[in-house]
């Protein structure tokens, strides 16, 4: 398993233009498979347009204590892109006036941003009620300074959404690194101990499942049952919901697909599983993604592909919700990942 990001390895695929070329060439160029634009046009869903903003998703930095095999952010300890306090202050200005009801913090490991706690405290003062922190769990056990994170989350009623690819050690560690499973279990037990994930508790703990290889996620409700049964029986762990998320063919997952000669078959799977009902609810229509340096994107995936919003407003410093509403969403073939089967979003299935 790699211990460095594609960026650090100076891989060809660290270049977003190269990724976009791959996604537009070959089977999509010669017409073997329809482009995403052609596919959504069949059901008159092109262009996709942004609706009313509900979720502000802020990526506070690409640094992470893990180097997961399929990370779409290409995150890792060697990534130095971290949101500054100044950019956070610009975000806070927006938060005070936004109509969005949810603030969704992601990374990397968002907790590794030195101003992470300050930012949450300030955002709470600014009136945000629904916080999501996308935690990799192991960060809670990575260093003493993070041990009290469960208590901090509880104090601010943060909704914790944690990655957990499988209920067995083998499959989890293969995807996320040796020792990740045991640390994740310990972190989940600590979150349970302060009240997270307990039925009827308002301290929400949801898990995210994404497949460990070149296949699509199974039915979210069935997977949730299997996860719940295994985690309670084996470790006494409880959680609220499971979000099944499809791996999008970008960054490290694209690298894996190509290296393992699964790219074409995977794209076929995505296109064959295309579901127009999922298109109606894709997350880019109600979410705005903000990068560590304050630029605006339709989603975290477009952020990684460096596809900025199609709007006069490009940066948080010039934010204008009215101008952003109704903008055309920027698409490419990676978007098939969000419209396959029951659909996929940062909140799980959408159809």
């Amino acid at each position, binding site marked *: 398993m790699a211990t460095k990001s594609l960026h650090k390895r100076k891989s060809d695929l660290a270049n977003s233009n190269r990724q976009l070329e791959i996604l537009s060439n070959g089977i999509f160029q010669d017409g073997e498979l329809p482009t995403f634009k052609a596919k959504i046009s069949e059901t008159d869903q092109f262009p996709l347009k942004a609706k009313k903003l509900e979720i502000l998703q802020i990526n506070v930095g690409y640094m992470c204590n893990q180097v997961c095999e399929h990370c779409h952010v290409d995150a890792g300890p060697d990534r130095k892109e971290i949101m500054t306090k100044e950019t956070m202050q610009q975000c806070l200005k927006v938060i005070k006036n936004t109509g969005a009801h949810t603030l969704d913090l992601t990374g990397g490991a968002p907790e590794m941003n030195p101003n992470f706690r300050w930012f949450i405290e300030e955002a709470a003062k600014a009136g945000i009620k629904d916080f999501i922190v996308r935690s990799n769990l192991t960060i809670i056990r990575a260093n003493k300074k993070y041990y009290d994170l469960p208590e901090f989350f509880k104090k601010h009623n943060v909704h914790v959404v944690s990655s957990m690819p*499988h*209920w*067995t050690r*083998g*499959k989890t560690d293969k995807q996320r690194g040796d020792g990740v499973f045991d640390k994740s279990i310990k972190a989940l037990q600590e979150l349970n101990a302060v009240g997270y994930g307990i039925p009827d508790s308002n301290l929400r703990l949801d898990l995210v*499942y994404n*497949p460990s*290889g070149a*296949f*699509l*996620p*199974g*039915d979210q409700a*069935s*997977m949730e049952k*299997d*996860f719940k049964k295994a985690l309670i029986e084996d470790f006494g762990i409880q959680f609220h919901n499971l979000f099944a998320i499809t791996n999008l063919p970008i960054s490290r997952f694209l690298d894996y697909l190509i290296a393992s000669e699964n790219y074409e078959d995977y794209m*076929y799977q995505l296109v*064959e599983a295309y579901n127009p009902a999922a298109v109606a609810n894709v997350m880019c229509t109600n979410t705005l993604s903000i990068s560590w340096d304050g630029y605006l994107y339709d989603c975290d995936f477009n952020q990684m592909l460096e596809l900025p919003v199609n709007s006069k407003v490009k940066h948080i410093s010039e934010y204008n919700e009215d101008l952003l509403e109704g903008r055309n969403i920027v698409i490419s073939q990676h978007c098939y990942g969000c419209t396959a089967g029951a659909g996929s979003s940062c909140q799980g299935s959408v159809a």
Partner: protein
Amino acid sequence: MSKSYYDPVDLRKFGNITEWSEELGNKFFDYYGKVFEEGALTAREKALIALAVAHTEQCPYCIDAYTKDTLQRGVTKEEMMEAIHVGAAIKSGATLVHGVQMMNKVNKLDG
């Protein structure tokens, strides 16, 4: 015409069998879809049975399809291999139980 009897790409064309016999093809696929729905058995249990039978039938298309299907359902490789052993045990048991027939015949002819 392909130079090989089996081509992985043909699996994607399975649905085309309805083109030459629409009614029977559709009835088959309706039945097939219904069989694999959640019922008294879970869809996961059914997928594992299908994986075992795919091996006893030695159908490369089915092995391809149900390996992927079971992976999608979170089935581990240990569970998959055990399921195949169930199929293998029945296959070998079915061979060996006929040994009794052989023994009966020997005893009759040369007992």
